[in-house]
Every structure is written in structure tokens, then in C-alpha cells.
């Protein structure tokens, strides 16, 4: 009886130590694979190089040819023609025809996502090209088609009610095993139209806990770890087994302000709150970034970054003066009151991004220093848009991604012209709405952009805190890793395994 137990143990241990396959690249990130449906999980497939869009974007945000070689708009900008690349095959071997592309875009348009907000009226397939007609001119259309929800799948990929059932894309990698929610395996697609990838097999696993991802990078279990928390960036930087990449991206850590709230309706009040924030301290101690945000748009957003703006400063004294000017007087418990109303607000944030609750805790102390009481409500991310819809939100600490569409105008239109779930709230400024629409149509130029950023900097419907940097830890044997600031691709085809 006793011997059998010992034998069992030995057998178990023996099977547990096979060598790790070395021709597979292990990619780890926090995004969970919901289902083969492009509108919910498409961003993973584009990042892993399994599916592609008509247009791509280079690191500076300039659109480059993807499945469409070039695109032109006719005179009045109401109809765009995208000429398709020929000789492109889907993973199931079928050729990519204009009809397939039109059908894919039509399906994408009916589902929640950026395309639904564009003034598209019809998409028609011609021979070797696709024509899209608009209800009124929209210069950013090609940028919208670079969004992951506009990825092109084979007709066989869609099941009942156009729900995605299998992922049949055109990308350099073909899925061999899709196991939602946590893992996906793919191998190089020999029939790919572009240059063949160097790494034969890739495996994606979703690890939601940032500590675990950092440990996997450190212990060498993952070759390509995307999205690290500040502390691990510092720790992994020291270890020689891993190289850490960090690049500024068009995502901004900001406070969404409800201007309808009595305490926040005056711009001076919002400016006071902004002055209370020690952006350098937060950036260096909490986020481990070189410097905090001086305005809404980071330099990485190119044209929208306006150097002439007066940078946001940290001056608690001036903040108190501004608030006294608005009639707030210091109460017994160190909190300001005005005609019976205490200066008490709720800051809503979400734990999906690990740094948000940390910054919330810091903001609570820094606002208390100027007499504002903050209670932190860390909950589900949807509470921000729910709070916006029913007006119950006071302050929301969010990480707004301006790179959803390679051209930030899309996000500006949805956030500030005039308000948006993740943008301004209870704040009316007609001038900014007209300017944004003109830039959207393509006729507004640099002066319009400069005026928009100037309004945002003075009116402060949202209070920027820090510009995000995307972090990536790559194992020693992997070369050629480049972070895409627009978070559209992991750049797997360009990677090379040295060992």
C-alpha cells in the first residue's frame, strides 16, 4: 500500500518537467478574449497580427496602406473610393473580394463602436474597390477604418445575426487554437500577402493580475509581457534577463469633471482643483514617469500638442485664494463650506488599470490639503458612463485613450463636441463644437486645433494629470520589439528569436 503511493508521486513529478518548446513566442497581456466576435475582442486579433484593416497607421499617426492600397474622396467629400490590394487570401484559402470587404464593413457598422458614429450612408463593392458614401463630408473616415472594429473577416467568419463565430482574417498569423477567455495559439500563415513573419508560432495568454504578469516576465515564463505596473518597471529594469521598453502614447490620465455640480460649475473652482495636484510627485513616485502632464494632449499626439499653452502648475496657496474668491470658507473640520454646502465630492474610478486607485488615494490627500473632501469609489468602469448619463457623477478618474482612432479628432468630436461619456460633462461651449466639426470635415487647420486646446486649457472641463507611457518587457532572446503608440499591433511579424 505504502509503495504504490511513493510510485505515484514519482510518476507525477517525472511528467511535470518536459523542456519548453523554444520556437514559440509567449505573449502575455491583461486583455481577456471574450469570443470570436470582432466588435468585442477584435483588438486582440489585430494586435496579434491575425486580422487586418483597410488602413494602417505608423508610429507618428500617419495612415499607411493596409488591405487598401490607396483611397481618394470625390469633389464634395461625400463619397470615398478605397482600391483594394489584389492577391490577398483569407486564412481559409478563399480570395479577399470587394464583396467580402463591403459585407465585413457593413456588419461592423451595425455594432456598437466608432464606425456607428460616422455619417456613412452606404458601402458598395465595385471591381477591385469599395465605395463609401457619406451624408456630409468627414475627412477622418480613413482613420476610422483603421479602428480594430473595422477589421476584414471572411464571410464564413460570421454566424447567426452576424455574430463572429470563427476568426478568418488575412493577417500574417493564422489561429490554430482559440480557447476563450485566456489563451490563443497561432502559427505563421504561409499564404500571407506581405513579408513572412520570422517567428513560426505565437501563443497569447491573458493574465489579469499585473503582479503575476511582472513575475512571469521576471521568471522568464513569458517572452513578450505587455502592460506592467510602475513598480515592476523599476524592478525589471535592474534585471538583465529582460529589456523594458517604455514609450509615450496618446492616452491621458485625467479627471472628468461634472460642471453641473454646484461646487464645480465655475472655471476658477476647476482651476483651483487643478492647482492642488502635485503632478511631478504623482508622475515620479506613483507612475514612475519622467514628468507629469502640462496640458491635455501629449507630444506623441503630434499636431494637437500646443507648446504655446501656459503649463498647468502646482500651487496649493493660489488654489485656496481662488476658492476663497468664490465664497468658500474653511470649516471646523478643515473642509471648505459655502452657504451650508460642504466641499465634499466622490471620485469614481476603476481597478482594471492598477495605477488608477493609487492615484486616487494620492489625490484624496492633495485635495484635503486645500480643504476639499474626496471619497473614493473604486467600481466597474461602466459606472463612469452610467454616472454621465444620469448626472450622478461628481469626479471620474479615467485613462482616456486618444489613440483609438489614429487621428485624435475622432475622440475629440465624441468627447468635447459638445460633451461625451468619457469627455466633458455639463459644460456648454459652442465655439469648441464648431471648431471640432470643421477640423473633422477637413477644412479646419492648425489655428482651429490651437484654439481648441487653448479653450480646454483655460476652461478645464477635464483636468489632465499625466501622459501615459506604454510599457513592454521583452525576454533577452527576442529582438526587433517596437511599441506601437496607437496600441494597434504588438509588432509580432517584425520580431526575431535569436536562440
Amino acid at each position, binding site marked *: 500500500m505504502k509503495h504504490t503511493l511513493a510510485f505515484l508521486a514519482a510518476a507525477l513529478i517525472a511528467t511535470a518537467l518536459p523542456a519548453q518548446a523554444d520556437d514559440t513566442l509567449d505573449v502575455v497581456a491583461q486583455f481577456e478574449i471574450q469570443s470570436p466576435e470582432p466588435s468585442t475582442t477584435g483588438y486582440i486579433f489585430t494586435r496579434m497580427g491575425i486580422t487586418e484593416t483597410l488602413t494602417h497607421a505608423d508610429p507618428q499617426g500617419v495612415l499607411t496602406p493596409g488591405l487598401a492600397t490607396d483611397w481618394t474622396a470625390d469633389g464634395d467629400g461625400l463619397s470615398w473610393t478605397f482600391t483594394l490590394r489584389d492577391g490577398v487570401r483569407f486564412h481559409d484559402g478563399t480570395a479577399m473580394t470587394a464583396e467580402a470587404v463591403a459585407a465585413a464593413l457593413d456588419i461592423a457598422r451595425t455594432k456598437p463602436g466608432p464606425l456607428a458614429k460616422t455619417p456613412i450612408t452606404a458601402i458598395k463593392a465595385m471591381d477591385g474597390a469599395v465605395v463609401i458614401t457619406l451624408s456630409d463630408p468627414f475627412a477622418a473616415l480613413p482613420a476610422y477604418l483603421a479602428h480594430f472594429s473595422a477589421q476584414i473577416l471572411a464571410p464564413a467568419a460570421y454566424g447567426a445575426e452576424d455574430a463572429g463565430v470563427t476568426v478568418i482574417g488575412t493577417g500574417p498569423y493564422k489561429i490554430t487554437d482559440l480557447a476563450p477567455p485566456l489563451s490563443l495559439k497561432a502559427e505563421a500563415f504561409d499564404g500571407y500577402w506581405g513579408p513572412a513573419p520570422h517567428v513560426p508560432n505565437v501563443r497569447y495568454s491573458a493574465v489579469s*493580475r*499585473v*503582479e503575476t504578469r*511582472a513575475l512571469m516576465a521576471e521568471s522568464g515564463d513569458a517572452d513578450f509581457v505587455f502592460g506592467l*505596473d510602475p*513598480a*515592476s518597471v*523599476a*524592478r525589471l529594469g*535592474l534585471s538583465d534577463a529582460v529589456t523594458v521598453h517604455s514609450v509615450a502614447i496618446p492616452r491621458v490620465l485625467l479627471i472628468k469633471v461634472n460642471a453641473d455640480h454646484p461646487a464645480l460649475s465655475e472655471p476658477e473652482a476647476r482651476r483651483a482643483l487643478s492647482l492642488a495636484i*502635485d503632478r511631478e*510627485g*504623482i508622475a*515620479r*513616485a*506613483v507612475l514612475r514617469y519622467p514628468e507629469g502632464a502640462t496640458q491635455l494632449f501629449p507630444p506623441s499626439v503630434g499636431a494637437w500638442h500646443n507648446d504655446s499653452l501656459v503649463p498647468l502648475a502646482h500651487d496649493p496657496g493660489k488654489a485656496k485664494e481662488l476658492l476663497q474668491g468664490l465664497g468658500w470658507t474653511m470649516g471646523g473640520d478643515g473642509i471648505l463650506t459655502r452657504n451650508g454646502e460642504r466641499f465634499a465630492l466622490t471620485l469614481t474610478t476603476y*481597478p482594471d488599470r492598477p495605477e488608477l*486607485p*493609487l492615484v*486616487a*488615494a*494620492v489625490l*484624496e*490627500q492633495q485635495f484635503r490639503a486645500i480643504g476639499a473632501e474626496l471619497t*473614493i*469609489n*473604486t*467600481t466597474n468602469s461602466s459606472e463612469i458612463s452610467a454616472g454621465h448619463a444620469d448626472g450622478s457623477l461628481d469626479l471620474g478618474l479615467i485613462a482616456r485613450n486618444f489613440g483609438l482612432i489614429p487621428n485624435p479628432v475622432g475622440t475629440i468630436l465624441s468627447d468635447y463636441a459638445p460633451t461625451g461619456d468619457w469627455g466633458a460633462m455639463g459644460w456648454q461651449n459652442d465655439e469648441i463644437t464648431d471648431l471640432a466639426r470643421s477640423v473633422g470635415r477637413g477644412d479646419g487647420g492648425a489655428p482651429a486645433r490651437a484654439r481648441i486646446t487653448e479653450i480646454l486649457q483655460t476652461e478645464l472641463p477635464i483636468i489632465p494629470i499625466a501622459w501615459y507611457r506604454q510599457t513592454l518587457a521583452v525576454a533577452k532572446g527576442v529582438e526587433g520589439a517596437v511599441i506601437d503608440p496607437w496600441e494597434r499591433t504588438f509588432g509580432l511579424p517584425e520580431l526575431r528569436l535569436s536562440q
Partner: protein
Amino acid sequence: MTDAVMIPRRAGHALRWTGAALVAASLILAVVGPLAVPGDPLAQSLTKALSGPEPAAPLGYDHLGRSIFHRLAAALRLSPAIAIAAVLTAGLAGLVLGTWAAARGGWTDRILTMLADALLALPGLLLVLMVLAIVPGTAPGFWAGLSLVLWVEFFRLTRAATRAVLASPAVQATRLLGFGPVYVFRTHIWPEIAPMMLTAAAFGTATAIMAIAALGFVHVGMRAPTPELGLMMVELLPYWREAPLALLSPVMATFALLLGLTLLAGSRDT
């Protein structure tokens, strides 16, 4: 399960006394600590982030420059307070329902037992998670969830012991001598149950503290700024190489408190 058989009395006592000493030590740290070294568990100083111990903060600072000593003291007040509150409610409910089920028998007993068995079949964490989803991250949420989980244990213990006692000749003789149910409870049932209650209570408190910490560790427990053992551990885990003491203090405090409670509960475990 009978009590530890064959553990000589001396060793049994020695273990329980060490257990009591450990629990007392952590409670003293929790209550007297902040009086001896005044400080605010929430006050931050970003410049002092992760720096070593100094007189104002005997255990150094965490990643937001908050004194770990004071956060630990606050955590050692918060978790045990919720745990003890939950154990008291659960104990009371279990005791009353257990005795009632054993005394009444028949349908009352059958229904209560079925309910208890059904609850027993569900993992405690699931129940606590469900209650927490309704009252997210607040102490009453934990208290309600944990009470719902812990009462089953007390109910089963009380019911089994009371049924055995009520069937004994001693109770039959007492009833023949004309004594009422209150006297029967006071002389026969309570002396039999009391020692078990202490053991189950100590064990329940340990389980409750573990549950709160586990939920904190997977980010679904207490909310960010409030100091809580599990949350402190998970926050300080990434800074393991930069400030090992920072991570070690909550780990050691949790281990000491739980070891104390487990020793206090004696080696009886159902």
C-alpha cells in the same frame, strides 16, 4: 470528531497559551501601537515612498509614503473587528437555531438541516462575493457575508451536541424531577456546548480573517485607501525587491494572528 486524543494535558495547555499570547500580542500592537507612536495610517508623503524605518514609522513607509506600522495597526483593528462581529452573530444564530432544531425535532429540524446542508455545499467565498456585490467593499458587506457562511458551522455543532445531551438519561432524570427546559439548558446543554463554542469561535475568526484577506488579495475585498491585510500584501508585492520589510510586516502579522487563533482553537477541526 473527538477532541485531540492522546495529547497529554500539559502540551495541550502549552499550545493554547502560546496561541492566546500571539493573539494578545497582535491586539496590543493594534490598540496600543498607535498610542505609543502617534501617526495617521492614511497620511502620505510621496518623497518618503518605500524608505526604511524611522522613529515616526517603526516599520518604514509603503509605495505612497504611508507609515506601514500605523496601517498595519489599523488593519489589525479592522479585520479582527469584522471577523469577531461576524463570529458573534453567526455563533448566536447557530446556537439558537441549533438548540431549537434539536429540541423541536420533526419538520423544524428537517428544514433547518436541509438549509444548512445546502449552504454547506456552496463555497463560502462565493456567498461572501455575492453579498459583497450587493454592498461592495464595506465592512457591513463583509460582516453579512461572513455571518451567512459561519453560522452553518455553529448550527451543526450545537444541534449534534444538543441532540446527544437531550437523549441522555441525565436529562430524562432531571425532567422527571420536575425541572423546566431553562434549567435543563443551563445545567446540561450549556456546559457541554461552551468549550466547543470557544474552539469554533476561534476557528471561525481565523477563517473570517483569511477570507477578508483573500478577497483583498484578489482586489475584490476592501476598497483602496482603507488599510486591510490582504490588500496591503498585494500592494506591496511588486516592491518586494526594493523594500522587503514592507511586504514582510503584513505577511508576518497575518501569519502570527492566524497561528495564534489556530492554536487557541486547539487541534480540533471538523
